[in-house]
Structures are given as C-alpha cells and as structure tokens.
C-alpha cells in the first residue's frame, strides 16, 4: 500500500470510519472479474459471520466454479467439495461437528444441476446448514455455458441460438422449490444489483444463518448476481440486466420464514 494511502486511512479530527473491512474477510485481492458479484456476496457473508461472532466455529464448504477458491477469502476453516456435492459434504461436517456453523457457497450449476439431488435432500432433511446460491444464469468458470437458470432465449456457448423450451426446458426457480420442503426454515431470493438490494440481501443472509443457530433447519438464500464476462456486458449494463431481465423471471422475496411465522409476522412472496 502506498504511504499516502496509509495516511489517508487514518481518521482525521472529527471523522469516524464509516465503512471498513472485517477480520473474517481475508485481505487477499480476489481472482474474480471486475464487477463480479462474488466479491459483494463474499463480503456480506464475512460481515454476517463477524457480526454474529461465529467465525471461530465456522466451517466453510466450498464448491466448484469461479467460487472454487472461496476458502482463500475467508478466515475460517475451509473444506473443498466435489462439484455439486457441497450440501452432502456439509451434511457430513455438521453431523460430525454439531456445534459448528456450516455454510455452502454454490453457483447455479453446482447447486441446481449436478448438485440438485444433494441440495434438495440436505434441505429436505432440515440439515442445520446455510446454503448460499449464486444465480448468474451461466456457467462462469468454464466459459459461459448454459446453466439451469439460463433464461429462455438467452444465448450461451451451448445455446448459441438462445435457450429453447422445447430442447432445454425453462429456468429453474430454486428459492420457490426450497420453500416447499419441510426441512427448510428460511428461503429467500435477493439481488446484488443495487445498494438497496445489497442492503436487503445482507439482512436476508443474516436470517439464513440465524435459523441454523436457532436449530430451526436449512437456511437458503438465492442471490441474483452478474457475470459481466460471460454476459458480454460491462458491469453496469450487467446490473441493468439483473433488474430488467432476471427479476421478472426470478422475483425477489422471502418465500419461507419459519421464525417469522412463529412470531406471527407477515410473509410476502
């Protein structure tokens, strides 16, 4: 870091630090593309773990995708899982260490294609884990192939004329599916395309962890995210796509909140 930067980082007279990093997030600069929302999602998760004071008993189960290296960015014990299997690995971890806090961090291919069975069944069993689902409608790491969440008509490297319902079927809505399962205590869909949505996403993320701490069941959160590189859009245009094209297909909302229901709070979909 430059000397001037270090100086600038000292609060001056009458100033307070309004935004800083936290000790759960590793300082290492990320390998993610410019404008990739993994960075925002990672930061939010680290803030929640820090604020809940649970980092020292957290075990992160990483997945395969651009986020294979999630564990490099969190100062918590981290375990690799084969592609799609994070929820099964997390089940094993949680059963072996009942006093730990366990979360998975998975892309759309990992959780909803190859890992669909493991994700659904861990959720159905009500495993006390938090599943974080990054929905960016493509397979990012491997260069932009179709994902289960790719929109109808969306061009990808394996749907060059655009996804067609007759050949590929339509996009899968995980937050709604998860909400159907008895073992799921919290299921929400948020987005990372605007400051307002990022703030809401953090609140939802916190709830998805709290249900684990309260022993209520599986906590699920779907985060609509951008992939500028494979969408061939700059980050700002990518954010617009989330708002204009993705949200109508993947509506934001809380689809299940067992704790709120118990408290008689209103649920909205």
């Amino acid at each position, binding site marked *: 870091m430059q000397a001037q930067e270090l100086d600038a980082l000292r609060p001056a007279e009458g100033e307070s630090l309004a935004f800083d990093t936290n000790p759960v997030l590793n300082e290492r600069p990320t390998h993610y593309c410019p404008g990739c929302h993994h960075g925002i999602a990672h930061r939010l998760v680290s803030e929640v773990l820090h604020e809940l004071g649970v980092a020292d008993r957290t075990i992160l189960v990483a997945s395969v995708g651009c986020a294979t290296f999630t564990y490099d960015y969190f100062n918590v014990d981290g375990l690799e899982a084969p592609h799609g299997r994070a929820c099964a690995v997390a089940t094993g*971890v949680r059963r072996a260490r009942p006093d730990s806090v366990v979360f998975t961090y998975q892309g759309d291919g990992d959780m909803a294609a190859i890992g669909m069975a493991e994700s659904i069944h861990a959720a159905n069993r009500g495993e006390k884990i938090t599943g974080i689902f990054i929905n960016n409608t493509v397979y990012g790491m491997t260069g932009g192939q179709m994902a289960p969440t790719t929109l109808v008509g969306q061009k990808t490297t394996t749907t060059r004329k655009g996804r067609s319902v007759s050949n590929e079927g339509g996009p899968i809505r995980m937050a709604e599916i998860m909400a159907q399962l008895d073992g799921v205590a919290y299921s929400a869909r948020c987005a990372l395309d605007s400051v307002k949505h990022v703030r809401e996403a953090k609140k939802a993320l916190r709830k998805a962890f709290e249900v684990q701490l309260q022993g209520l069941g599986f906590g699920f959160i779907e985060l609509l995210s951008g992939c500028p590189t494979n969408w061939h859009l700059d980050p700002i245009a990518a954010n617009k796509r989330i708002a204009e094209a993705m949200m109508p297909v993947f509506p934001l909302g809380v689809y299940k909140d067992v704790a709120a229901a118990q408290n008689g709070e209103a649920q909205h979909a």
Partner: protein
Amino acid sequence: MSADTNRMLIKGNEAVAFGAVDAGCRCYFGYPITPQNEVPEALSSLLPEIGGQFVQAESEVAAINMLLGAAACGIPALTSSSSCGISLMQEGISYMAGSQIPGVMVNMQRGGPGLGDIGPSQGDYFQAVKGGGHGDHRNFVLAPSTAQECYDFMFRAFALAFKYANPVMVLGDAIVAQIKEPVRRVPPKDAVAPEKLADLAAPWRMEGFGRRGPGAKPRLLKSVYLAEGALAERNRMLMRKYESMKADVAWECTDTDDAELVVVAFGSIARIARSAIRQLRAEGHKIGLFRPITLFPFPDEALRALAPGRRFLVMEQNTGQMVEDVRLALFGQANVSPASVSWHGVMPGLFIGADALREPMLQALKEN
C-alpha cells in the same frame, strides 16, 4: 448354550456394523443395495443409541460426500455399498485421497458388470486396488474372508485410515456379507483406541479455528493445486505415502512349507479353496494356500520369498484380476517362469463349494 456373552451368531454385514461401532465409528452414511443392506440397517439403530449419526443418503454419490465431510472433521466415519454403488463413489474416493481424508468404505461385491446380479464376485479387485477414481491414488485394501474378520478388520480399517490419512476399502463379497457365523464381539488385541485416532487427526481436521486456542490460524483441506509445480510435489508426497504403506502389509500362509503348488486366493474364495486344499492334503498332495489379507499393499515380497521351487495357481471370482499382480510380483525372478503361474476363474455370481475348486487344483498339480 454358550456362556460367552460376547459370542453372537450374526452375518458378516452385521459384524461390520458391530466392528465399526466398537472401533469408534460415530457417523455412517449409506444407501440401500443388495447384498449389504444389514450394514445400514444395523447401524440405523446402533449409532443413535450411542449418540452417533446415521443418515440414509439419497444416493451413493451423496453418501461418499457425506463421508468426506465427516471424516474431514477427524471423526471415524463409514460408508458401505456394493459394486455398482461403489462405482458411483469413485469421484469422492479420489477427492478423499487427494485431500488426505480418512474415509472408510466397505464393498460387499456382487456380480457385474452393470447391474449384474446379487451373487458373490471379486470383480472389483482392480477398482479397489488400482485406485478406481481418477488420478494417481491408492486405497488401502483389506479382504476379510469370515464374519469374524468382518468384525476384526473394522478396527484395522479405522486405524490405518487415520495413520495414513487415506481412504481404506474393506473388500468383501456377497458370501462373507450374508454368511451367518459365530463372531466374538471382542476388540482385537492390537486395536487402536478411538482417542488415539482423534490425536492423529488433530493436525489437520476441520473443527473451527476457535478450538485450537488463541491466535490459531484457519486451515484448509483441499485437493486442487494450481500453482506451478504444486500438484507435482503433492503427487510425489502421495507416492511416498503409498510406498510407506508396505509397513502394514498382511498375508496368511497355510501348508506352504512343503507345497509344490500354492493356491493364491483372497476373501471367500480363499476360504473355499482352503476346504479343497484340506481334502487334497489328506489325499497326500503337497498343496498350500497363500492368502493376501491386504490387497494394497500387495504382499509381493512374501510371494517372491515363496517362489523358488513352487508353482502358483491363482483362483479368484472374476475373469482375471489379481493374477496380474501375482505375475507382476514374480516377473523377472530367477527360477520362476511365467508358466509357473496359472489361473482359474470362478465366474461372477456363482455360489460354489470346495468341489468346484478341487478339479482345477488337481489339474494344476499334474502339470509340471
């Protein structure tokens, strides 16, 4: 009526379950498949009774990954399956080998390939011994031949898994799985205490850094190494580890001292062969049995020591797998010609008796 309350009349599958629990296993993840269903069925009540975890997984793919997660936490954990289900587990096994995670797996082999049948076979020898998953990996492989060994070998399996931080495969078959025999439910004399297993896991297990005291750094268990030369170094380390497993090689010789012909067999086939050998010995034939107990590491040095002046008849229930390792062990040895190793295969799925092995043994005894 036996006054020995440790003596039970149980199937090999049940012996696996009791052995696992007594050896310290506290997590089981598995999926129903014939002929090993008594393993999950027994553990579904044994484990919860002692505060352990039992999960019937949605598939063998899920089961092996749950095993990976639990064993990564340093907790003795187990899965079991049969042939086709073990095929589904290969990815997870490769990952455990690559990440150095001590998962224990039991394969009660059935006839293959494909759906095959539900009879006995030894057709998964290659899969178990050569590392059936991708990449250069090896499983430590134990081959029980009795229900008592199904019980006893579980202690060995967990001890070896934690000693080497490596997957261990207990390779049985439909006969040893389903046979009902007296089993003494008493830990072997050399059994390693579960607390000792926990000590072995302390340097690498997933547990949350808070458990390791103030200033403890988070740790990572993974098999991906992308930096230049990093995977090469990792593989060299694993190679050295697999080589070092020779320290725990095991085999059993019966009547080999003055034998002209030595039958080489493992698991249930070794046991059936022993009956035939006993008959032939009584008729004056000089025949013995060499039974590998560890299939990896393979007891090649012991075999080479036996070789001078003897011929070998490899008998196995497949179309030719262990015979390759026998030939490899003896290749190039002085006074051992390739013709001195012959082979007899029992086809997968068949239930045979000693009489089925007698003829091939007599045939081999005649040849010179």
